[in-house]
């Protein structure tokens, strides 16, 4: 390989750094906020290390119920989408060649239709069917899970079909013919030869379908009825005011994703190692017995470290008590605030004294010592560290007069503020 000039290599490294920062930076930031005791997801100012958001997450009924419904919807969507996708892809290989491209366009169209439209049309369609069949308004055809599964599968099945089509393109139809020639029925040939070949595509389209279903919002928002899935719950929560339980959830999801990816990588590398050695997988990698399991497989090492770190963190969380640190932090903050108040009061007193001593002057206001300028104050304080704490509504006591302009913005995030709105919104 030709060695690149230094500036190109540096540029490349910079580009990669920026690219990955853009890609995973937000995830990392969000994950860290799950461990900050501040009640708004934030890193700066860092208050106190805490694990409190995790138990809080697991005791939040709405989130748990949302998770449960997401899993239900995901499960049935996977089953429906994968089977429809498989059927659609097989059909594509069977259909009369002249019709093929038309058929392909039709079956791929749901991907291009906005999810919102799919959501609304699913709702309208099944309500109509329900009416025609003369069922009551709370029949199974109007069930939120049923509608969400059907609505999501409409386009997720198309994704699955694309995965199957890609795999089928590499299928040698000669294999099916060979099976038939050896006396198999069409069903036997499909089950024993073609289906096993499609197994990897089934796995990946299942994962794809589940993820697409799990994260779906814009179709489900119309179809969920009483069964708010996780994404719906989260979006409602954002409107009511977010706290780091969401970060905790994000952190758990990120960890599960990384874990899944690592396990997959470990398995791929095991198979590769076995292939390179020309021996069965278990023999080369020693089954799951260390140290052979780790030998020559960096992914396995990373997986081991990852699991180890998880165990350590969980163990640490059991014994760690943030209360003293929190107390210290609160005391410290109080002291700072006290000082600030005192400083302001002192300044005010100084000014009064000055005025009394020198007497009024014409150009005095123009000189603008700055303390009294409302314009400067409203901007300058926005960036003050404790500013956001107050915005999030943790501060019960607010120093009066520090920043009158800020209040209008800060109030939006005040928790009691949202509680007032919440009961009205809950109706839908």
């Amino acid at each position, binding site marked *: 390989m030709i060695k690149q000039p230094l500036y190109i290599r540096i540029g490349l490294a910079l580009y990669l750094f920026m690219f990955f920062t853009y890609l995973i930076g937000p995830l990392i930031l969000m994950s860290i906020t799950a461990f900050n005791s501040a009640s708004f997801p934030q890193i700066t100012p860092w208050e106190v290390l805490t694990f409190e958001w995790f138990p809080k997450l697991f005791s939040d009924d709405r989130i748990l119920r949302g998770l449960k419904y997401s899993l239900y919807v995901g499960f049935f969507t996977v089953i429906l989408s994968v089977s429809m996708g498989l059927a659609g892809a097989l059909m594509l290989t069977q259909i009369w060649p002249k019709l093929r491209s038309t058929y392909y366009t039709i079956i791929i169209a749901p991907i291009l239709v906005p999810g919102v439209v799919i959501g609304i049309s699913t709702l309208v369609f099944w309500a109509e069917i329900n009416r025609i069949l003369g069922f009551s308004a709370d029949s199974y055809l109007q069930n939120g899970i049923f509608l969400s599964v059907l609505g999501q599968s409409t386009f997720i099945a198309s994704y699955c079909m694309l995965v199957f089509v890609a795999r089928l393109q590499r299928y040698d139809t*000669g294999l099916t013919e060979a*099976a038939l020639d*050896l006396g198999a029925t069409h069903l*036997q040939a499909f089950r*024993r030869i073609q289906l096993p070949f499609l197994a990897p595509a089934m796995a990946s389209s299942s994962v794809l379908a589940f993820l697409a279903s799990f994260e779906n919002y814009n179709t489900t928002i119309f179809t969920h009825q009483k069964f708010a899935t996780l994404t719906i719950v989260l979006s409602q929560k954002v409107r009511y005011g977010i706290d780091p339980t969401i970060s905790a959830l994000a952190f758990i999801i990120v960890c599960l994703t990384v874990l899944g990816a690592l396990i997959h990588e470990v398995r791929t590398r095991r198979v590769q190692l076995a292939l390179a050695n*020309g021996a069965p997988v278990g023999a080369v990698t020693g089954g799951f017995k260390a140290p052979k399991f780790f030998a020559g497989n960096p992914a396995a090492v990373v997986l081991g470290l990852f699991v180890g770190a998880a165990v350590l963190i969980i163990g640490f969380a059991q014994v760690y008590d943030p209360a003293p640190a929190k107390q210290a932090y609160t005391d410290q903050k109080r002291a700072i605030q006290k000082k600030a108040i005192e400083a302001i009061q002192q300044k005010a007193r100084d000014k009064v004294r000055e005025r009394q001593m020198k007497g009024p002057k014409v150009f005095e206001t123009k000189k603008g010592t700055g303390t009294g300028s409302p314009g400067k104050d409203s901007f300058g304080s926005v960036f003050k560290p404790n500013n956001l704490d107050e915005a999030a509504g943790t501060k019960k006591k607010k120093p009066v007069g520090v920043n009158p302009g800020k209040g209008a913005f800060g109030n939006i995030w005040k928790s009691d503020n949202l509680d007032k709105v919440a009961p009205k919104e809950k109706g839908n």
Partner: protein
Amino acid sequence: MSSGVAVDLQDMWIKFGDFVAVRDANVHINGGDFFSFLGGSGCGKTTILRAVSGFLEPADGKILIGGNDMKGKGPNERPTALIFQNLALFPLMKVWENITFSMEVRGASAGERRKRADELLDMIALSDQGDKLPSELSGGQKQRVAIARALCAEPDVLLLDEPLSALDLGLRHHMRTELREIQKRVGITFIYITHDQGEALTMSDNVAVMRTAVIDQIGSGKSVYDDPSTSFVASFVGMNNMFRGKVKSISKGQALVETNRTGNLLARITTGATGKLAVGDDAMVFIRPEGLHIAEKSAKSNTRIKANVRHSEFEGTSYNVFLEGDAGKEMKMSLVNRGEARLYEPGAELTLQFDATQAVVVPAGELASE
């Protein structure tokens, strides 16, 4: 070997839309024969095989296997097993599972299948390879597994589609003998497809030579070689020197042909061409390189050719002499090395002679392009 099952193609046409892939094929294959279809790429050999095994329905005509009309029977209902051009071993199954797939679909127990697999693996000398995947085998081994898998189905007719074309030369020669031995042992009818005339001639009891969509001649290897029915067969099977001309006279199964550049040549009218030549017709005379000799004094003028040596090759058992006749006519002569023969200098002027019974004449027609 009359125990095997005969296969008959009767007036069979195969079409893809308007395209005629096989035109009016009539073939009788004796039970227990090793029968080859020989023809260039794209002439319709695979198509015929697929029709026999049931993947294609003929547009017209019949296919009989053991006297039974196969019309409407699918590939899984026919007593045939096909060895695919690319072998089509099942990549996700172990070798022994591949071999006994036909038993599996009939519901045989795993024990039974394993036992039969071991017998067949012994037969193909791969005894301890049963638990491997096909991808872990070499080309020749895969070949043998494909044969074992087909034989395991106990077919009456084994169909082989250019099974050796993917192998290297040495292995190909070895597998020729092996295939022929297997066929003798199991005694069933083999229908073998190849574009390699060496394979067809050495292995087969009978050969059908195919031109595009048409079967030109059916016969033993010797008759196809020595007694070609058409100009295509004469030019396709083996090397041949070809002379164009017009029939001047016919007598006692021989024709005198007045050629454009080489004068009058006397040649035998082949069995297949008998009755198809009349005086004045365009004809082609074919003389094998080994049919040409250095002329003796007694040679008649209509079995003599004058030519100049261009260059010679020594091949050990023989000399190949490349010659140029009148008006640039190219010829090749092969002389057996008996010790006394010598290489001719380029430019040497020779008079050649041939035996009129070894030269053949057929109506002018299509030539193999190779």
